[in-house]
């Protein structure tokens, strides 16, 4: 078993899990799906620099071989951006849940364990 196989198969498993979760009907699951998918994408991007063990890209006069620094830089910002995107999706889901009383992805009324007898649109509330 090689490390390459482990990484490639992990990417595959994460993508499969991400796709399956993203296709579910509730917003929280979609967010989790996005999270899994992002892990896979970041790993894939990182792997484009190939796998290197014990050669961090910290420059020194005596060292000749390093891991590829460019994908690392790209993935670093990608991780942070992923957080921004996840946070945005979570808040969007929360807002839609608070406005419509449903956590179905399209805001359709569904059984969510929340029987608050509030109107499902904002016609009943005051306008901001």
């Amino acid at each position, binding site marked *: 078993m090689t490390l390459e196989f482990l990484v490639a198969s992990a990417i595959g498993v994460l993508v499969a899990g991400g*796709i399956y979760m993203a296709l*579910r009907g509730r917003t929280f699951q979609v967010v989790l799906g996005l999270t899994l998918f992002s*892990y896979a994408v970041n790993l894939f991007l990182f792997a484009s620099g190939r796998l290197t063990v014990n050669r961090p890209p910290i420059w020194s006069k005596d060292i000749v071989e390093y891991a590829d620094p460019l994908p690392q830089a790209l993935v670093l910002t990608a991780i942070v951006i992923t957080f921004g995107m996840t946070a945005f999706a979570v808040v969007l889901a929360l807002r839609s849940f608070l406005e419509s009383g449903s956590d179905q992805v399209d805001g359709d009324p569904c059984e969510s364990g929340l029987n608050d007898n509030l109107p499902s649109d904002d016609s009943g509330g005051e306008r901001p």
Partner: protein
Amino acid sequence: MAVSMALHILVLLPFVSALLIAAGATRGRGFHSGIAIAASAIGFALVLSVAGRVVGGEVLAVSTPWVPAIGLDFSLMIDPLGLMFAGLILGIGLLVAIYAHFYLAKGEATGRFFASLMLFQGAMLGIVISGNVLLLLIFWELTSLSSFLLIGFWRHSAEARQGARMALAITGGGGLVLIAGMLLLGIVAGSFDLMTILQSGDVIRSSPLYPVILVLILIGCFTKSAQFPFHFWLPHAMAAPTPVSAYLHSATMVKAGVFLLARLWPVLAGTDLYTVIVTSVGLVTMVFGAWVALFRHDLKGILAYSTISQLGLLVMLLGFSIEMAAVAAVLHILNHAAFKAALFMSAGIVDHETGTRDIRRLGGLAKVMPITAVIATIAAAAMAGLPPLGGFISKEMMLYETLEVGLFGLPWLVPVLATIAAMLSAGYSFRLAAHLFFGAPRDAGPHARAHDPGLGMWASPAVLVVIAVLLGLAPMVIAGPLVASVASAVIGSAAPPLDLSLWHGVNAALMMSIAAVLVGALLLWRHAGLLRRYEALRHLDAKELFQRGMAGADARLRKLMVATHRPSLQRMLFATFAVVLLLIIEGASAGGGSFTGPREGLPASPIAIIAWLLLIAATGAVLMEERQRFRVLIYISVIGLIIALAFVHFSAPDLALTQISVEVVTILLLLLALNLLPKSPPILSSNPRRLRDAALAVAGGLGVGGAAWAMLTRETNDPISAYHLANSYSGGGGTNVVNVTLVDFRAFDTLGEIIVLGIAGLAIFALLEPTARGVAGARLRKWQEDMPHSPERHPLMFVMATRILLPLVLAAGIYIFLRGHNQPGGGFIAALVVAIAFLLQYLASGFDWTDARRRIGEHFLIAFGVLVAMATGLGSLLFGANFLTSAFDYFSLPLIGEFELATALLFDVGVFAVVFGAVMLALAQLSHISQRAARAHAAQLKAEKLTHEEGEP
């Protein structure tokens, strides 16, 4: 130099004045019209100052490359044709601006009016003095847009809005077709430079693309110039204020199509195809417009259809492909501009002073409005083609030229139809003057109110009428040299000798002209009877057809959209994933070759295999236990942790640090959201759907995983990272190549990314801010804690531990930040670590306690960060280096020793501030939305109670 300055001032002046007027929109009418009048006058004077040289044969041109890659130059050119149109646009623009000052009431939005008017003037001017056809297209579209604003000026009126929309749809749509035609033209000619195109007429006419180019360009010209069957927008554009109609439909907007036909005459004209299409379209439009004009009742309606007819005449003349006909067209452009603008202004005066434009309610106005009557009657006589006015000469020339043209092999067709159109023109002109100013008043009301306006309103049409008279009495003196030089510019070679005069002896044209006048008089005499017959006929309503067409297109598009784009996220995501998967399969099969590459793999240690098994198991658990949402979060964090470990193992310490801190923040975020969301709702999807999704997921996993495998088993393809490694220390001053890449080599990327992150933070704030009110607020107030809680609200140990931790973490954050340039760390990681320390305070001590001790707002941090990063980047420009180039040097201090200072550090400060601000903004907002909702409600109740108490003394 002087020429280039004059040309630039000429084209920029209207735009600058439009800006000035818009900036002072709240000022008075005099301010707005004053700027418009002054700008038009200066422009007109500039045109006059170069007129002598241009008429003498000089072509003034100036060119600056703009987008050389596509052949777009900002090149301006004044030749005689451009000069004549520029003179018309600015001269009549000046008169219209004066007239509009008096026409518009004091309360109207004159700022908006004059700003749009000047915008339009600039666009028109741009069309006629562009020396590059791409530039011309830009101005062409600008005229469509600005005329939309002008026609829809009275936006409270539905007619104005519909008229404006129709004009935009037709002329803007035609403009799109024109773009295609012009691009093909430029490609065939090999250049978008107008002069080059004008000289490659033979190449273009012999090109196999010529018919396509011709038809596309003609559609552009015909829509703009309201030629049949695109004519119907023009009458509806009459909903505009009258000064706009006077401007757009005498000398400018509708003449743009004629201008372009004339401009491209040397290139396009001369073929049978051109002659047949252009002549017959012009002929049909001329006869049709004149026929309808005879039976309109609205003064502006009559003028609108007469404009259509006169434009048809011009188009027909250009279509003849005869040089003398082009000369006649040039002369008639001048004549028409003069008398039609005067007539529109007179119609506006009548409307203004009597309150109606319905010719059936008017009559006998000559007694009460003598000055207006004289002006309008002379102008109408010019339109009818009576001697001794300018209209007579150009109509005479037109009729004479028709004898030279045989269309469809029928030598009599064009002369007969042209004579009929001339008869009808004489008829509607006579009717306009006679029914308006002479005879008995038909309605006492408007007649009683009527009186001549002040000098300000009649001065402009009076000037125009004087010109129309002089064009007839002394044509060679007034217009001779100009017409000759313009005609030669249109033709592209020397114009035939010109002899403009009222009397050419007894010839066929004179006979036709006399017949036209006689029949015109007969039409006036018999008008009542004809009108009854005309109105008994059923007519197609073009507006209704247009609206039905638009509604039909709307309905069909909506059907298509509903069929393809169901508002269902699941459907759309499924389709997206499936398409991407198909693309992967397609790409893989197109590439061919083996699945596994030749690269040697690294042996996996048992620990690696265990970690891998854990990751697979955690992913499986996420899928299996999707209803147990808290447990799922734990599995997710296991995955994140293993990925962080993988980064450590694969020589990416920076990534590992980032991943682990992001992981903490993400889990906190999900926990906060889950607090409010349902914890374990029933499953929605049906079993077949789950199976279908699972199949797609497995296929997707195999596809992406397979791609990763294929990539990992091959060598890299000459990566550019060697450059980064080689220059990191010497050029960027840091040994941590990843960090140097972020803040130096690819700092522009990073700048973009922190801006995106800042926007995400602000968008989250905007999404959560309104939840305190409305339905969301009500729902939040009703929300009950549905999780078992610790009896202690703020556990003492937790509070104390986090407070002791804070300074330690801050110190660690500073350390991570400072060492980032040389060792793993940097702004991103430091910001995340510090954010976690602060979030712990929120968690342990509660939002209120923490928020009260917060000094700097997150919004400020985000803005500060972006500005610092940008300022750092711009700073390098001061030293002549590229944007975001970093500088560094080594300093030494006693005790501390040698250390390094780099501007990249400053950039990293910006990164730190934005990341910290965005993370805090997102999580802090989320952490107290239910409290906020309760507070907003309490405040509202209190306010209501207060007003209630005040109401009861």
